[in-house]
C-alpha cells in the first residue's frame, strides 16, 4: 500500500497547491495549506511502516506546528479584516510597487 499512499498524498498536495494559487479568500487559502500538511502527514505515516515509528513522531510535530500556525494566521486575518473590512487578498496590496 506504499505506492498507493504516496500517489494519494501527491494528488492531495497538488490540490492544495492549486487551491492556494487559484483562490482569493484568505481563509480558504489557509485551509489549503492545512490540506497540504495533511498530505505530507500521509506520506510520513505510509513510510513509518517501512522505516520504523519515527515517522509517526514527526506527524505529531507537524500537527503541533499546524495548530500554532492556524492560531497565529487566523489572528493576523482578524487584524487585517479590522483594517480593510475584507479578507480578499486582491485588496491587500500595500507592498505592491
Amino acid at each position, binding site marked *: 500500500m506504499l505506492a498507493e499512499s504516496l500517489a494519494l498524498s501527491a494528488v492531495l498536495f497538488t490540490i492544495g497547491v*492549486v487551491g492556494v494559487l487559484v483562490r482569493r479568500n484568505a481563509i480558504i487559502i489557509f485551509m489549503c495549506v492545512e490540506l497540504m500538511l495533511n498530505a505530507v502527514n500521509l506520506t510520513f505515516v505510509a513510510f513509518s511502516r517501512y522505516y520504523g515509528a*519515527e515517522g509517526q513522531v514527526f506527524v505529531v510535530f507537524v500537527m503541533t506546528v499546524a495548530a500554532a500556525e492556524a492560531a497565529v494566521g487566523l489572528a493576523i486575518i482578524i487584524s487585517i479584516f479590522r483594517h480593510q473590512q475584507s479578507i480578499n487578498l486582491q485588496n491587500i496590496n500595500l507592498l505592491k510597487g
Partner: protein
Amino acid sequence: MEQHYPLFYTFNFYFFGVVSIASALAFVTRKSPVAAALWLVNTMFSLAALFVMLDAQFIGVMQVLVYAGAIMVVFLFVVMLLNLGHPSEIADTRGKWPAFAAVVIGIAMLSMIMTISRGRIAGELQVPSGFAAQQLGKYGAIGTVARPLFNEYLLAFELTSVLLLVAIAGAVVLGRRREADAR
C-alpha cells in the same frame, strides 16, 4: 516487501482514498467558506481512516481530535466572527492566467512526485516486514509513538511546548483591539 492484502482491506483503502480526493476537490471549488471547511473536515476524516489502516491508530485519533476537531473549529469560529459565511458576490477565483499557471504547475508537480515515488527504497534502511505490527503488539498503539517521542526526540518535544507558548502570545497580541482602534 509488498505483502498480500485481503480484498476487504484493499477495497476500503481505495474507497477512503477516492472519498478524500473527491472531498478535497469539492473543498477547493466551493464558494462559501463554511461549505469548504465542512468538505475539508470530510477529507480529514477519510485520511484518519487511512492512518488507522496504515497501522497508525494513535495518529488517526489525533487527526480526528486535533485537526477535524480543534483546528477546523477555529477556522469556522473565525468565519462566524467576521461574518464571512456567505459566498462573496465578487469572483473568488483569480483571473484566467493564474488559474492556467496553477493547472500547469499542478500537473508538473504531480508528475514530479509520481516519478520520485517510483524510486526504490534502499534496502538497508528498511525495517523487516511486519515490524510495525510487531511493535504494535509489543508496546500498544500509544507506546509505539510515545517511546521514540520521549527518548530520542525529548528535546524537540520540549521545544514544541515553547512554540505553542509563543503562538498563544502572538495570537493574543495580534488579535487584541488596540486603544487607538477602539475609539
